[in-house]
């Protein structure tokens, strides 16, 4: 088990390396740079700025400098747009906010999706099932950025119940967390239902029923764990979807998270900031996939540890 876990984490290193390399060159080979905007800098100033950020060196050298600085100093360099602030400073203040949003959304999604899916499976082909699954499809189909403004309109601007934006108390968190969680909850409901349907037809559940356990006990004690397997394997990609999806949530609710800086860095062509944020995303995504893989093997003894 632990050797598998260790090995799974070791595979992250080459993956991350490939991802970082691809992103670096994709970004740097793009035409234009941060300093060719409307207000053209005088040539002498431009030369100094380019020297400061190492743009005067050949690209492969910049690449090694960038990589080296990450591994030796743990630094992504200075932001272009926010002079005097390093990228890791910006990440350190914004990342906890994004993580908080992401984790709460994940918890919410599980709390909504799992019961919905189980009801669907246990009451298969009844109106409860149809209703739960129709609700799930609606949740998948309505984009976050359509739900969010409409909720703001209803709960903030008409009913004055919740604040419009920002990230301070729990009342600020209700709408963003719900909107971020909605599509994920819907996917989880469908997966939980499918998993449960498969499990309740299996032999060990029939045995549990045969020995006279109540239906509730059969479901909660015996079937639930197996039924959660598809949900668990979805949590990795699901968390990735949450992180990227929160780009729009952070924009709509004016939440000071990392996603907002990603979009801003794209618009301002802030190379260091963009690459820094993207590397943090890549680490999170690949690591969450690895954790899910390991958890999966832990939950399902039938999966072979290779």
């Amino acid at each position, binding site marked *: 088990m632990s050797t598998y876990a260790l090995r799974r984490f070791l595979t992250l290193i080459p993956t991350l390396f490939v991802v970082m390399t691809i992103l670096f060159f994709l970004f740097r080979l793009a*035409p234009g740079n941060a300093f060719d905007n409307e207000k053209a800098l005088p040539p002498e100033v431009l030369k100094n700025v380019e020297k400061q950020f190492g743009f005067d060196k050949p690209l492969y050298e910049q690449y090694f400098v960038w990589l080296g600085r990450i591994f030796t100093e743990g630094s992504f360099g200075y932001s272009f747009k926010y002079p005097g602030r390093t990228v890791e400073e910006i990440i350190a203040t914004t990342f906890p906010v994004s993580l908080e949003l992401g984790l709460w959304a994940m918890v919410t999604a599980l709390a909504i999706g799992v019961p919905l899916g189980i009801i669907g499976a246990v009451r298969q082909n009844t109106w409860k099932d149809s209703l739960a699954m129709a609700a799930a499809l*609606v949740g998948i189909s309505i984009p976050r*950025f359509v739900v969010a403004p*409409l909720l703001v309109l209803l709960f903030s601007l008409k009913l004055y119940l919740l604040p419009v934006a920002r990230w301070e108390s729990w009342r600020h968190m209700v709408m963003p967390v719900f909107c971020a969680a909605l599509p994920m909850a819907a996917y989880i409901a469908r997966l939980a239902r499918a998993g449960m349907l498969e499990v309740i037809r299996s032999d060990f559940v029939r045995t549990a029923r045969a020995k006279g356990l109540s239906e509730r006990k059969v479901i909660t004690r015996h079937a639930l764990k197996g039924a959660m397997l598809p949900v668990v394997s979805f949590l990795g990609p699901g968390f990735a979807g949450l992180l990227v999806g929160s780009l729009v949530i952070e924009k709509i609710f004016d939440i000071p998270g990392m996603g907002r800086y990603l979009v801003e860095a794209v618009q301002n062509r802030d190379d260091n900031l963009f690459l820094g944020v993207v590397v943090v*995303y890549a680490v999170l*995504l690949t690591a969450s*996939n690895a954790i899910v893989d390991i958890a999966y093997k832990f939950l399902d003894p039938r999966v072979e540890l290779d």
Partner: protein
Amino acid sequence: MATEAAAPLSQDAAAEKGSSLWSDAWRRLKKNRVAVASGIVLIFLTLLCIIHPEVSSYAYDKADLKLGPTRPSWEHWMGTDEFGRDLFARVTFGGRVSLAVGVIATVISFAIGVSWGGIAGYFGKRIDALMMRFVDVLYTIPLLIVVILLTAFYAKPGTVFHDAFLWVVGIFSDHPKDPKYQPLFKITFVFAVLGGVSWLTMARIVRGQVISLRSQPFVEAARSIGARDMTIVFRHLLPNALGPIIVYTTLTIPEVMMVEAFLSFLGLGTEEPLSSWGQLVAGGAESLDLYPWLIFFPGFMLALTLFCFNFLGDGLRDALDPKVRKD
């Protein structure tokens, strides 16, 4: 394509008389009333988006600054935006863009994914390992970020993509550099990028299907009459894997449309004066409290379309999934 695909199967089922996979599936799909309704709504929406901008008395980009934003009325069914442009016309025109993104990007991802998975699955061994390892690596890259990066920085003059675009436009027009083609370039670019990144799951599905089919007698039979490898893959194996392929294709369309809307919402996709549903929603979100209809109508159309595609895809899956046959 459907008759060709049905051929090997219906021969197989000939002994059973008349209950081919396709007629079974069609029968089951017709019983699924929500899926049928979704299909009808989609056809209606598509026709509306194709026809309405042509016959409407308002052009999607015709501003009327004196009029300004107005509520939905008899003259303007969905109201008008800040510039007095008719929202209904903008919504149906934007629907063309959104639907076209969905369909074209899906066709691209279909072409790549099906050939990739088919070839990897059929040849197996080293080729399979190499091709699928490539897919695995791409899976670990946060693709949406790559899409953001590409559309933000490569969809502009001076890149090979723009040169290629100019070349293609040059075939139809004497002045390919005319700025009026510029928004078109951005959209074409989004089509291509979205198609180029969304074929991975399709490749995996097709590979799995082909692996389970390739040792069947009909493949042997085809080989024995001298069919070449590529003929076997594209004429014999893939048509028999068509069920899951159709299902997944139907589900790719809403996914791609969602990403395009997401990009446009962030200001990276479709640009003014063109419209797409995502871009209209983004515009509407900015004046939410003053002109709520600006977000309501495009948001509703987008959600309805995605909903119908998802429901239809689900219905097709139920209809074509051999596991639930004849229950």
